[in-house]
């Protein structure tokens, strides 16, 4: 299936980001052009400092671009106010972080509820946790869960509001290979069952094998976009 047949979710044009660090200026992004489509799973691959996290943050409404534009559907994100960005994050985007960022004082169920309570038409916390295969650990606190389990709670929390996009920043970065695979499976399940456009950033090339498309960044540029003709299931991925 060709990507162009699908609806475009994100459209970025000539996107640049310059961090002013006092005496030096760091160019994190240098004119990135990019389109992301409905239902696809994209891996942004690149070494550290390549600009992939900056790109993700701008797409997620956490950061703003120095120049260029990003459109989310018909909405211009680069012009959005703080309030609009909060609204955008609240109803359209799900985030998964490298270090899970669960609230230690809430159980798995409550960590999901904290998002479903402010969402429109969310699934139940139980449903979301079942989707990542955690129905058995629903009343456990983060401290009682393994790293992989914590990350799956984070995924459940991110997708419970049925977001259009799921943005994952090194979701397996803090996990060993076998646990990481379980987390990747969860991401794939969500992508397939809910059709959520999923962006995963990683410096681990092996993970790219499960993507629909792989976008490779280096030094603030997109250096290559690869269409995966043969997607590997996560269980076959090893690193």
């Amino acid at each position, binding site marked *: 299936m060709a990507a162009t047949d699908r609806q475009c979710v994100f459209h970025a044009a000539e996107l640049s980001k310059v961090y002013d660090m006092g005496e030096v200026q760091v160019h994190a992004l240098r004119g990135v052009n990019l389109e992301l489509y409905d239902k696809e799973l994209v891996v942004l691959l690149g070494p550290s400092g390549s600009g992939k*996290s900056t790109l993700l*943050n701008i797409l*997620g409404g*956490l*950061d703003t671009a120095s120049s260029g534009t990003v459109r989310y559907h018909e909405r211009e994100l680069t012009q959005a106010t*703080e*309030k609009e960005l*909060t*609204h955008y*994050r*609240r*109803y359209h*985007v799900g*985030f998964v*972080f*490298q*270090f899970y*960022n*669960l*609230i*230690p*004082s*809430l159980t798995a169920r*409550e960590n999901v*509820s*904290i*998002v479903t*309570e*402010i*969402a429109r038409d969310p699934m139940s916390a139980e449903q979301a946790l079942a989707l990542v295969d955690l129905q058995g650990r629903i009343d456990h*606190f*983060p*401290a009682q869960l393994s790293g992989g389990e*914590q990350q799956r709670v984070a995924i459940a*929390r*991110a997708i419970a509001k049925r977001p259009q996009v799921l943005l994952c*920043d090194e979701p397996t970065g803090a996990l060993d290979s076998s646990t990481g695979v379980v987390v990747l499976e969860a991401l794939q399940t969500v992508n397939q069952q809910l059709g959520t456009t999923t962006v995963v950033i990683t410096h681990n090339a092996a993970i790219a094998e499960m993507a629909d498309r792989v976008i490779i960044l280096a030094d603030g540029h997109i250096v290559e976009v690869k269409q995966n003709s043969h997607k590997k299931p996560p269980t076959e991925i090893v690193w």
Partner: protein
Amino acid sequence: MRALDIKLWRELWHLRGQAAAIALVIVGGVAVCIMSLSTLDTLVQTRDSYYRDYRLGDLFVSLKRAPNHLQQQIEQLPGVAEVETRVVAAVSLQLTGSDEPATGLLTSIPDHSDARLNRLYIRSGRLADGRRDNELVVSDAFAEANKLQINDTVVAVINGKHKRLTIVGIALSPEYIYEIAPGAIVPDYKRYGVMWMARTPLSTAYDMEGAFNDLVLKLQPGASGDDMIDRLDALLKRYGGRGAYDRDDQLSNRFLHEEFVQLRNMAVMFPVIFLSVAAFLLNVVVSRLISTERQQIAVLKAFGYRNAAVGWHYAQLVLLITGFGILGGYALGIWLARGLSELYMDYYRFPFLLYQFSPLVFIAVAAITVSVAMLATLRAVRAAASLPPAQAMREQSPENFRLFWLERAGLLRILSPSGRMILRHMARRPLKTLSSICGLACACGIMMVGNFQMDAIDTMVYMQFSVAQRDDVKVSFTEPVSSAALYSLKSLPGVAYVEGVREVPVQLRYQHRSYRTSLQGIARDAQLQKVLDADLQPVGLPESGLLLPERLASILGAKPGDMLTVEVLEGDRQSYQVPLKAMTKQFLGVSAYMDLQALNRLMNEGESLSSALIKLGPFESMDSSQGFDAQQASTVYRRLREMPAVAGISVRQSLIDSFYETLAKSMLTFTFINTLLGGVIAFGVVYNTVRIMLSERGRELASLRVLGYSHNEVAYILLGELALLTLLAIPLGFLLGAYLSRLMVDQMQTDLYRVPLVLEPDTFAMSALVVLVAALISGLMMWHRLGKLDLVEVLKTRE
């Protein structure tokens, strides 16, 4: 500078808000301590040098009349160093341009030389000359209050005769540092003054030629005062001696002593509170800092820094904050001590002040403060020093939360996750929550200690001058008079009602304890003077036996039913055994009470009165003073003053005014300082609590922001916890405040006055308000900071 030192200063700069808040609390404690101790030191040194240089006597006695040659006989007594005999006369005064009654105590000074004992410090002018019969020296307090200057004239009624006197000097005496009328509660410089005339003219005017009626004596070193008192009393009995007494019973000295006791208590109590709060804050901030720096500590150790070096690094941080606090406290303390000493000068009349800022006090205060600070942070610093590098490098696992009992009981199901986050966070670390609550409660409590005194003073005045003492004017007679004298008072136009009182100077003894005071005989149907019981209800006087204020009973160690010895200090100085019948409540002074008839019976005298209480008004009635104006009142005063038997007149309203002017002024100065420092504590605690909450929860809150929570929703979680802590702390603060106020009240019990514990709603409200405002300001600052949370950065890094 070494890298580690640079790190120290940078961190201090980073923590500047919190560090400043802690340092301010230390400033408060150190300042109060320095202020109280230095003022005390200043006053004690000044008093001692004043007593020494102006030769205050050791023993004092007044008598009816003794021939001058008795002086040699007294000088021969073993142990006597020096004797000064004097003529002392109570006079009433007429001041130009004032209708209000004023009275004075006129004391003789030698005709041509300086006195040997109780010398005068001449502030301006000169001593009175014995060759002139109209020269007067007045005390500077009286001169100041009445705007009298050299060459002004004063008319004194001496022995019923009007005498016009010219002021030639303005002076101070070590005998009257606290210049208060006998029987008065507070000084009233406008209406009572001490003054001096040369011996010869005064003796002539007072019919005391060749005689004296007052004596001051200096003992040889090592001589026993008590033995000398017995000898003097025996010797002077036939001359109408009223009982010798030493400095402990000397009025001015006793007031001064009581004041010093209070000051010393103040020097201990407030710094203890301040230092406890500062210790608590340091503990919290340093523990927190160290736990966020685990990895840095590990790295330092991995590079080979010793445990001691790491420990010292954090100890230095504590020392720096404490050091700034101590230095600030020194400066503020010195400034306050100067101000306070000068305030004391207003009613403790010293000719000079010898400011004392003893290095020992400063060193001791610093040593205590540093020790408290180090102790408070010892655990945290030691933990940092002994942290094994490998363990420090490891990631801290998420905190271990559990369902707590309220939840297991199902009580929290109704709450939103944000609500549950707040409660679980508080329940997760009960000790920490408790210590935050305690800190806030401390702030609230210390505010109450500052605030309650105003209400207490109002209550004292109300109970004393509206419930116990209802007269408008009190007239004291030169000699005891019969009750017939009341008729001539009652017949004065403008006098609505009169009743008589018998006051006898006595020495009360029980077992080995004794106390000099005045025994008041009050008619059983008295309307203008009431004796109050422990519940502040007027009580009827028993037919016989004594009533004593609780304070006096406890000084004597006597309880109702005990038999007391009453030594009368006038007339033929008989002793009587009288049972203690009941105890009374009295906020000002310590007089004993008895039924008037019983007292007259006991003294073997007929109906005898020493003063009269008068209610003014146009009609013969008890409650008729309305519609009676000041001009009519002053006519009554003038008529009273002209009566030869009248020694003194005191006007109730003037007493109330002077009470507020003097006592209340000094107490309220303290109150103001306390309130200010209480506010500092409140803000210090709240601000630190909030900053720590923010730094502990920043990551969590940033995650929520990323997940789509708005600024306000995130703030709710933090502010909700702050609000809950504050609300829990306030009732606890009320309890603590009530306890501290009670402690304060107990510390302030003196013979002069007992401050009642009166906690009015406004005290509670004000204290709560200060804490709430501090919470609100800190909350707003936090809200502002939450708006600037770096969402990207917080998510990238692990805590």
